[in-house]
């Protein structure tokens, strides 16, 4: 045995350097591969144990939470319940991860339950110390920890942390910023939307949709800030302002809306026309004719034809009919025909069909008249 090793050793020493290097690399790669397999397997065991712990904690905490949420607990019983939960999650090694599991559990219930149950869960969240953990994470965590903390606080409706969160609405990391903006609207309502007045970072469409989803709750309230947003240099704020106008029925600021019909950014312009249509702003029809002549963009023209269908009268019927007869662009003919149908002027379409003016127009009119599509 020993001879074998010495022989191998001398063999290796005698090798040319390049052999040595490559041999060394091969052996270290194979060792690396073996080590990685072991790491993967250990990672797997770790995951399994976390999963088991998660299951165990949920199973034992769940009934306690159910009791808290659905029973008439007095102060004493509530404290006992919290003690019980604390005992379950307590552990020298795993407390942090146990709290995270508990956190998800409570958030989950909170997302689904409302009313009295809702308030109890909030109380639980505070009392058990999860709120404090979220606040600490917000102050000291990496960006994704910060963002998650803000998200948790807003999901749990921790209104008192609004002030802490507001500082992050123009934070340098986009994800943190977005979460803070969302939380601001969720916790602070329309008053907290002031951050939009001088926001100069762009908001993604995703973010706009999220903020809109939150804002839909103020449906019948007057949001006087909209005017400022429509005048913003930040196109994403303008578009958001228009969305608010449309979905929250903000009829004021029509003058500003009229100006936006001529906006140079296609997205803003399109949204403005759509908003004018949705708010039944018929006074702007003259402007729409003008824009229709000015623009070359099919999308804008389509929006205008659609708006005419909702806002127009007999003059627009004529214009739409003309469009079907003369226009070569399929999409525009289609839109015009659809508008006529929405105006209830099937008669115009039917008579058009009978006159057989153009084959293309005719098939489109037939399509539009088919109610099954």
């Amino acid at each position, binding site marked *: 045995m020993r001879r074998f090793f010495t022989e191998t050793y001398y063999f290796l020493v005698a090798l040319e350097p390049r052999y040595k290097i490559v041999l060394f690399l091969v052996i270290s790669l194979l060792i690396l*591969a073996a080590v990685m397999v072991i790491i993967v397997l250990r990672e*797997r065991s770790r995951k399994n144990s976390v999963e088991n712990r998660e299951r165990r904690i949920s199973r034992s905490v769940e009934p306690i939470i159910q009791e808290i949420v659905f029973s008439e607990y007095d102060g004493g019983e509530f404290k006992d319940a919290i003690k019980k939960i604390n005992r379950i999650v307590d552990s020298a090694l795993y407390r942090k991860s146990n709290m995270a599991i508990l956190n998800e559990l409570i958030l989950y219930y909170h997302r689904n339950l409302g009313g009295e149950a809702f308030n109890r869960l909030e109380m639980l969240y505070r009392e058990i110390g999860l709120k404090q953990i979220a606040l600490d994470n917000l102050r000291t965590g990496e960006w*994704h920890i910060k963002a*998650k903390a803000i998200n948790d606080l807003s999901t749990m409706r921790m209104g008192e942390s609004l002030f802490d969160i507001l500082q992050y609405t123009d934070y340098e990391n986009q994800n943190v910023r977005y979460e803070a903006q969302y939380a601001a609207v969720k916790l602070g309502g329309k008053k907290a939307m002031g951050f939009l007045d001088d926001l100069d970072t762009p908001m993604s469409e995703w973010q*706009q*949709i999220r903020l809109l*989803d939150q804002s839909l709750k103020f449906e019948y309230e007057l949001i006087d800030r909209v005017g400022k947003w429509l005048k913003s240099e930040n196109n994403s704020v303008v578009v958001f302002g228009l969305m608010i106008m449309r979905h929250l029925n903000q009829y004021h600021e029509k003058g500003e809306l009229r100006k936006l019909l001529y906006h140079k950014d296609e997205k803003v312009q399109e949204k403005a026309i759509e908003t004018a249509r949705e708010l039944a702003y018929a006074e702007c029809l003259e402007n729409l004719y003008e824009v229709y002549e000015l623009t070359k963009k099919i999308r804008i023209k389509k929006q205008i034809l659609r708006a005419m269908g909702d806002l127009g009268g007999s003059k627009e019927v004529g214009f739409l009919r003309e469009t079907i007869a003369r226009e070569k662009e*399929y999409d525009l003919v289609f839109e015009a025909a659809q508008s006529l149908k929405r105006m209830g002027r099937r008669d115009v379409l039917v008579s058009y069909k009978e006159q057989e003016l153009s084959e293309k127009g005719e098939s489109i009119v037939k399509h539009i008249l088919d109610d099954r599509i």
Partner: protein
Amino acid sequence: MIEFDNQNSLIDILIYIFFFVTYGYTVFVMVSYLVLGILSVVQARKYLRRNSYTDYLNILQSPEAPTVSILAPAYNEEASIIENVRSLLSIRYPNFEVIVVNDGSRDRSLIKLIEEYQLEPVDFAVNYALATKNVKAVYKSKNPTYNNLVVVDKENGGKSDALNAAINVSTGEYTLNIDVDCILEEDCLLKLMKPFLEETEKNMIATGGVVRIANNCKIEKGRITEINVPNKLLSQFQTLEYLRSFLLGRVAWGSLDGLLLISGALGVFQKELVIACGGYDDDTIGEDMELTVRMRRYAREKDIDYVVGFVPDPLCWTEVPESWAVLRRQRNRWTRGALETLLAHKRLFLNPYYGKIGMISYPYWLLFEWLAPLIEAFGILLLVLFSLLGVINISFLYLFIALIYGYTVSFTIATLYIEEITFFQYKKRRQLLRLVLAGLLEPLIFHPFLVYCSVTGNWDYFFEGKKAWGSMKRVGFKKPSGGNKGRKITASKPNPSPKNQVRSTPAGA
């Protein structure tokens, strides 16, 4: 690098250069994979962190979500069409339509659809914005539950033609283009649309997603209910290959905005731009790659500041061939498809006008995806020749091959590790070990096979003038409860192509 004869003859110098180039090339390939791998890990981690608290509900209930048309071309799919359409209709998204194109099937696909979904023909005015074969009829359902289903019956014209017809009929702002026999995750559309909605500076023209292998997975009613590693060794090899290709290769290319291929199995496209650049090309084999490249070119040439996105989540599951012969035909076709696209767009090569795709992606494809197997095959031939002639000392070479083997295996296992800490799909310990085992065998069995397919693909393309589709046989999905257990034969059916893959063994041994 080799043992020289006493005289420095010309042949020795040539051999020297040959080895210098191949060794250098190999090391270069290895390093580039390492770089791609690291980039992917960084990207996937960022993605997972960002999405750890994402709530898709906001968008799911939003009136402002952009409209999407799901385009599903079908040819002779009667065995599974009903189920596939049902699972498409149950995708989670606020406003979408499903457009199924029956591309002149010779089986009962259409009749089955009509019966199941209570369809009737309507007066649809098809706008042939993209030229296609004649559309015979457009069907809609009498049942309001299915009011977002449109079925197009047209003359047979191939997959590209069917997709173009679907685009013509669609009303959405975006299209989700899929293979009808792929199994999609319920929230795949939400996840694929997110990058479009998140982009604030550039114009996102398309996003792709990760395709995984469905063989041996449990499937119920068009949904994956249990993820398994395939049973057959050949499919296990492909599992590793797809993992490397999607998890490492494409995620990295996605983060560099250098993707040249959005797989035909799963991709969302901005419709306006697809139409503007002419839609799918009927004459090409690799229509998915060709379209991606053409869209990028078009956007650049029209001065659109664009970007192509990629979602690292596994979103789509597909069956891969379980027989060597079928796989050979598939790979042969992919080789020809990629080759055709590369040749058709050779303008891009090292052209700084096209930015990253001209300077990095295209040369990478040319050098590593196309040339690598050829160089490898050529190298092996020469080696055999040299050693027969006794010109070289091959002991160092053996060692070098061992190095390549070690590297490949380590890389594969690193991929498994990354999968483990990111998406963690293969949950059974024994199955994982089987993948490790397959990883040890792969460079010895599967890789030479791929080289062979690629070489014959090149041969067929250049010398046989073959461009038509090879046929593809697939084993039907396993259903736990009764139903269709037979073999499903899909003729002339293109496949999702994970072409932008990281090769298993660097070439040039």
